[in-house]
């Protein structure tokens, strides 16, 4: 298969490649956002745990 012919997408390149590019971006960002949201919750939980332990001290 010819690479430049593949990239040209039969004249539809300006519609096909931005669609795939946007999709790749949304897929990657969602992975990043999900991990960040979990890490933030873990950080908050660690802080809350420290406070709970402190409150339980005699």
């Amino acid at each position: 298969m010819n690479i430049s012919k593949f990239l040209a997408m039969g004249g539809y390149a300006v519609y096909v490649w931005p669609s795939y590019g946007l999709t790749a971006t949304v897929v990657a960002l969602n992975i990043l956002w999900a991990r960040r949201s979990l890490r933030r919750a873990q950080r908050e939980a660690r802080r809350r745990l420290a406070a709970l332990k402190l409150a339980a001290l005699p």
Partner: protein
Amino acid sequence: MAWVWFHRFGSPPYFYRVARRLTPWLGWPALILGVAGLIGGLGLAPPDYQQGDGFRIIYVHAPAAWLSLMIYVVMATSAAVGLIWRMNVAHAVAASCAPIGASFTALALATGMLYGRPMWGTYWQWDPRITSELLLLFLYLGYMALRAAFDDVARADRASAVLAIVGVVDVPIIHYSVIWWNSLHQAPTVMKFGRPSMPASMLVPLLLMLAGFSLYFGALLLTRARGEVLRRERNAHWISAALEES
């Protein structure tokens, strides 16, 4: 039997542990299916006899649109379960759906615009399918804004659950919009009774993409839901157990 399963998943520590172990089992197959779908969709499938190579947008547009609907159904169902059985894990799952669903609804609209321009000659039309899909985006955004308006997680859970459940009527409207009304958008090719109107060389990559995106959503959902479950937990004993496992 079913009830044992239901109660187990309602237990935050159990959910947290199982979700963590399950995530890679969804994520890696999703990657494999996605790569196979891309090779099939961009390389192996023949150009369409009417739309030429432009039809290849369907391999990203249809999965995005499918996720936008599936995620909403998952969100509304878990919100209902959370409301009826006062189950925190279900509320955590519902809350985790919204940002993922909103992003894929926006993607479905954006790729739809890029698909519409060469095929219909316009980026945008106030067409039943497009308008009802835009409403879905506003439902997701409204749900997130409503949650953000509460400081108390439990109250945010209850209020937003009602919105999620009411909004679910938009899902069948979106699906049937192309049948009920005269729409620019084509009628279903795959999600219909009878045989899909596509040759296997075009259909198989599409099914691979749909399966891959669904599993990928599962992995994202479990990751986010673990954080949301942790956020709702006040029991020091299991918070420390969960954090040790990480």
